[in-house]
């Protein structure tokens, strides 16, 4: 029985960690290139809305995903235009994107669907199907491997596996390719990159575009994979949790995976165990639900140690001083 509970909580963790993982990697790539992005939340929200509405209209979830990625990249490029080309403040640009997203999604949804700022419920092909991994049924009753493979890993939407795959891809891109080296250099010392004759602006735009793609996937998963439709403010702070996870992971992809799983696990535990007796004291529901946020503060304040962001992060590159 206890084993079953563990498997179910971990399975729920997989689902809840996926949007965080996409968003966390998105922020990581953008910030590694020296562009701070607190607009992750807003981009996810717009993508969630786009995915749900286009999937509803077309009846095909993947067209919705493409639209979500498209609109999210567009928002990213707006951020890029403001903060790279026009050298505006990156934080302010990010906040603006969050506000814009919160308002525009509800207004457009109301205009299109007249359901009070939500999209109609999705069904059938307009939702992401769950995928059973090969041999999942056959391995079901094998001890240890069975519960892990069949219970936890198998039976999620495709994007869950894409998110997991993005971790080694991000690592490989950042640390094993020439593009990644330049990307990191542009976040640490853009002047050196410029001296070497590589375009700082081009690299930073590439980074925010990748960030947009990943945020688009995060939002699409939220509205078409995790739930069946868009409602206002449905990201519910997940973009900010992803930022916290990114700092917790100190801008490293594999550590990011660990961090988002921790946050996902905390949320899953809070959903599952709402009243826990610890040493005869009954912890109320509110305490359990505040746990992820309390731990965020505790972890960031106490356990991370010194998290040093990329040195040129937050500042626009100016050629001549």
């Amino acid at each position, binding site marked *: 029985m206890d084993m*079953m509970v563990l498997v*179910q*909580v971990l399975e*729920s963790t997989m*689902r*809840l960690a996926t949007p965080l993982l996409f968003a966390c990697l998105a922020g990581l790539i953008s910030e590694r290139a020296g562009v701070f992005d607190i607009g992750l939340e807003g981009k996810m929200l717009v993508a969630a809305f786009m995915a749900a509405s286009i999937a509803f209209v077309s009846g095909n979830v993947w067209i919705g995903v493409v639209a979500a990625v498209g609109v999210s990249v567009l928002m990213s490029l707006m951020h890029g235009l403001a903060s790279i080309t026009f050298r505006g403040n990156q934080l302010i640009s990010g906040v603006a994107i969050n506000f814009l997203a919160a308002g525009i999604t509800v207004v457009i949804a109301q205009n299109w669907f007249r*359901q*009070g*700022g*939500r999209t109609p*419920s999705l069904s059938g092909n307009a939702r992401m199907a769950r995928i059973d991994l090969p041999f999942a049924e056959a391995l079901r009753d094998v001890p240890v491997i069975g519960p892990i493979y069949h219970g936890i890993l198998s039976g999620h939407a495709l994007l869950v596996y894409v998110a997991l795959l993005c971790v080694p891809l991000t690592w490989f891109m950042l640390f094993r390719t020439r593009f990644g080296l330049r990307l990191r250099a542009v976040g640490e010392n853009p002047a050196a990159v410029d001296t070497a004759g590589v375009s700082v602006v081009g690299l930073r735009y590439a980074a925010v575009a990748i960030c947009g793609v990943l945020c688009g996937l995060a939002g699409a998963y*939220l509205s078409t994979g*995790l*739930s*069946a*439709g868009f*409602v*206002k*403010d*449905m990201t*519910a702070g997940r973009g900010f949790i992803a930022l916290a996870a990114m700092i917790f992971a100190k801008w490293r992809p594999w550590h990011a995976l660990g961090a988002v799983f921790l946050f996902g696990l905390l*949320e*899953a535990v809070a*959903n*599952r165990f*709402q009243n826990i007796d610890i040493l005869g004291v009954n912890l*109320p*529901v*509110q305490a359990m*639900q*505040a746990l992820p946020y309390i731990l965020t503060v505790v972890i960031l304040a106490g356990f991370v140690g010194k998290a040093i962001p990329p040195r040129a992060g937050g500042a626009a590159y100016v050629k001549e001083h």
Partner: protein
Amino acid sequence: MTRSHKFAGAASLLALSAGMAHADPALMFDLGGKFDKSFNEAAYNGAERWREETGGSYREIEMQAAAQRVQFARRLAEAGSNPVVVMGFQNAPTLEEVAPDYPDTSFVLIDAVVDLPNVRSVIFAEHEGSYLVGMLAAMANETGTVSFVGGMEIPLIAAFACGYAQGAKAVNPDINVIVNYTGDTPAAWNDPVRGGEIARAQISQGSDVVFAAAGGTGLGVLQAAEDAGVFSIGVDSNQNYLHPGSVLTSMLKLVDQAVYDAFTDGPGLETGVVQMNLAAGGVGYALDEHNEHLISDEMQEAVEAAKAAIIAGELSVHDYREDSACPAF
């Protein structure tokens, strides 16, 4: 006073008296929003029914943040609307502040009691309606476990949970009732992702009937129940049509009737506390073409018998709000 001033004064007096003469009723929705498919939408439907039947017109206002409560209630009263219907228990302090300033305006508060001479407080016996759907849940149940997803852990929602648990245990004393809440901020009424995840956790614990009393969050709960092939129970409005065959029934709270009555009674309506209980037809369970094949004749007989007993006073359902305790937990 110059002539133009006099003219302006006369015009504004005219405008004011014109506003008074029409005195359109007004409806102020709570944070869940007009189209939450539940509590606020029921109010909207009641107002629309009134509009269609009488040909009258009414003002409505939706707020975006809790800070707007007092401001918007004042705005409606200032504009000469009468009566002003205000939705939601969280607006009790709003009316305590606003209503004394407009003694000639009648206010109607849905879901809480404010003791002022120009306020009608409409409260519903949610525990009685929840008792009936709890019985239906236990009769449809096969696993020995049913569950409940609430929005916030507040006395109103706990009354739903407590009535539900009492009804379920009246049918099957050994039944296990899981009670979970979505959150402790207003976002808890609009987070279908978390609602669905909580419902999945309950279903994995063996629940095969999930009752949601959580506003927009409930849509995620109902969806998760359908995906898992188990029953769900809707709330406030009739939600049977959302997932036919999966929604076992809905706990009806006739908010639309309360709004309709208030609009019909018009300015100067009778104030005081209005009890919308089973006897008054204010709560109940939904039976329509979407769920009639799910509710067998025996189930219906048992529920109708309990309903008659509650109305006759032979069966009393404990209300959590009386003493903040529930005998069935």
